[in-house]
């Protein structure tokens, strides 16, 4: 199974610079077109209907404003151990 | 402690060492270099910091850095070097970190010469840098007084978190006189709570002179001015001789005050009712005491080794109540007692 991930974008901190979208290998980050944040920027959005995000974190590394928190699904060692018993 | 024969610059340095200075940053310039030389030996042997910097600009910014950590720190220089340090003075004053600066003044303007002068009175007493502030300025007139005031300078700097000058001139810096040094003070081990010591178990401490909003910067200025008001009201220092029955009082500080004293004594011997008023703090200027003298004194004669700078403060203190005369020499020329005596006679003859 491919690693699955997701990101959370702090929309109020986002300045809409697009560098995260540029860095995303899955091209699943887009700038909002329907709303702006309190600073007047179009924030970045994760648009991932096919669950393609791998949690690679390249977007977060490229983000100049530390707006992105990255999560990745990893095998759960404890649960697997329990299941084995 | 035994009385020792010491050069003024060396005495200033050793007095600072004994007052617990933990770091010295400086740059060679005549006529203060012996101070730096003494520090280059003493500070490392005591395990304290000494750096001969690449310029006075760097020196004062090193002082600024060390002062941010709440350590006792100082530099020393002479007039052209003090000009270069003005940037740092301003940042230090706004950031409210304590430090001591020795200025062994020389003839100016420009490169001028290396002879004794008091031509930088305006420079040190007005603001010593851009912005609205005054530094505390102490002016000794003997090697012993220089030693005593160095200790006071560090205490005042710490008490008010402020920039304190000790101003001498080339004559005081270079001359040898007997003086008694104070005992060695132990170094402080505690750092003040505002100091940069690492944000360990507390929020970060920040030291800055930047306030982008006008109301916020005005608040900083209000706080600074309130502090300066307290200093102005409580820290004025001066000394007087034979002023009780004086009709004419000679006003001079540092070397000029010392030479004037000889002339005043001569005038007394000649039967003239003359006294001496010697400011020890140039800022705050001892206006309270000088102003009180105008009750019975008929005129003031200001003697300076410049073209007339402190005379403006004397006139403010006199408040137009009595005439204020001036006698000065410039360019590193040190007046002899006889010429000040002649000026006294001239002023005295004008009295009603």
């Amino acid at each position, binding site marked *: *199974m491919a690693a699955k*991930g997701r990101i959370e974008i702090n929309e109020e901190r986002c*300045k*809409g*610079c*697009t*560098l995260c979208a*540029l*860095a995303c290998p899955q091209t699943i980050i887009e700038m909002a077109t329907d709303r702006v944040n309190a600073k007047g*920027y179009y924030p970045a959005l994760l648009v991932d209907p096919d669950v393609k995000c791998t949690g690679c*974190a390249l977007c*977060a*590394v490229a983000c*100049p*404003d*530390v707006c*992105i*928190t*990255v*999560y*990745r*699904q*990893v*095998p*759960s060692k404890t*649960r*697997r151990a329990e*299941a*084995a018993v | 402690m035994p009385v020792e024969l010491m050069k003024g610059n060396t005495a200033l340095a050793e007095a600072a060492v004994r007052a617990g200075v933990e*770091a010295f*940053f400086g740059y060679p310039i005549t006529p203060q270099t012996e101070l730096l030389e003494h520090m280059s030996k003493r500070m490392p042997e005591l395990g304290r*910091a000494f*750096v001969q*910097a*690449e*310029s006075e*600009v*760097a020196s004062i*910014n*090193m*002082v*600024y*850095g*060390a002062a*941010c*950590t709440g350590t006792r*720190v100082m530099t020393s220089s002479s007039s052209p070097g003090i000009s270069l340090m003005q940037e740092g003075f301003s*940042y230090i004053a706004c950031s409210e970190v304590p430090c001591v600066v020795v200025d062994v003044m020389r003839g100016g303007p420009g490169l001028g010469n290396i002879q004794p002068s008091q031509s930088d009175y305006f420079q040190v007493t007005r603001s010593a840098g851009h912005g609205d502030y005054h530094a505390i300025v102490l002016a000794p007139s003997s090697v012993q007084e220089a030693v005593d005031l160095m200790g006071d300078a560090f205490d005042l700097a710490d008490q008010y978190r402020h920039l304190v000058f000790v101003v001498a001139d080339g004559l005081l810096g270079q001359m040898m006189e007997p003086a008694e040094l104070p005992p060695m003070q132990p170094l402080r081990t505690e750092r003040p709570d505002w100091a*940069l*010591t*690492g*944000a*360990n178990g507390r929020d*970060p*401490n*920040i*030291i*800055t*002179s*930047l306030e982008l909003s006008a109301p916020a910067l005005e608040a900083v200025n209000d706080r600074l001015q309130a502090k300066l008001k307290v200093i102005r009201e409580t820290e004025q220092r001066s000394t007087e001789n034979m002023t009780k029955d004086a009709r004419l009082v000679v006003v001079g500080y540092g070397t000029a005050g010392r030479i004037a004293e000889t002339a005043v004594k001569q005038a007394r011997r000649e039967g003239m009712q003359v006294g001496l008023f010697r400011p020890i703090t140039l800022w705050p200027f001892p206006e309270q005491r000088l102003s009180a003298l105008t009750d019975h004194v008929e005129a003031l004669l200001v003697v300076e080794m410049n073209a007339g700078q402190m005379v403006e403060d004397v006139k403010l203190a006199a408040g137009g109540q009595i005439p204020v005369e001036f006698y000065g020499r410039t360019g590193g020329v040190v007046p002899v007692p006889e010429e000040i005596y002649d000026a006294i006679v001239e002023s005295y003859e004008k009295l009603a």
Partner: protein
Amino acid sequence: MTSAVMVEEKVVYERPESLADVATHYCPGCTHGIAHRIVAEVLDELGVRDRTIGVSPVGCAVLAYKYFNTDGAEAAHGRAPAMATGIKRVMPDHVVFTYQGDGDLAAIGIAEIIHAATRGENITTIFVNNAIYGMTGGQMAPTTLIGQETTSSPGGRSQTLTGFPVRMAELMAGITGSAYIARRSLHNVKEINTAKRAIKTAFLAQLNGLGFSMVELLSTCPTNWKVSPAEALAWVESDMVPYYPLGDYKVAEEVKPLMKRR
């Protein structure tokens, strides 16, 4: 047994503790933010946040002291290395770094940075080179490229009028007191990660008392270059990197083992 479904979610990327949780004033796409973040990540990884003192410059990063979650001071223009010297000499067990732009470090403060290195001052400098004065609105910097248009080099920087852009990493590498001098870039993720490793080496050099360390970071200024953030990154790669080659310019013998260790 189907252990494949037994998964849990793990945070793989979040704000480093050494970076304050506040919005910065930097323009959209400005790579100052990236430089701040990787410095903060290194401080976290080295576990030195609570004994670090940062010195901010005058320029776009003038408010850097608000962004690092460490003690900090704000220096006069160009004087950060002198101020850092004063701090380090009385706090030798603390980690002291300056964060400076190209106007601050390579113009008005070139004496202070060079002499900090000549003394082998045990501090670390993060030098952000974006080839322009950003804060004052896009004037020519000492690092502005020949032909680059700025508000004070209209028509492009002319070498006959203004000479040549200064290569600071090369200059600093020639100084005996320099322990580690490198130039990196922030124009893509790979380079950002490489830059972070260099910054870690620089701080490790300081922690081991080896002398002066500096990492020059090629950075962007979309606002004053008058291009989009994406175009700015492309310009760094196409125009800046050829003039300012990336690499290690000085690695003292004692620093080499530190590079292997990480």
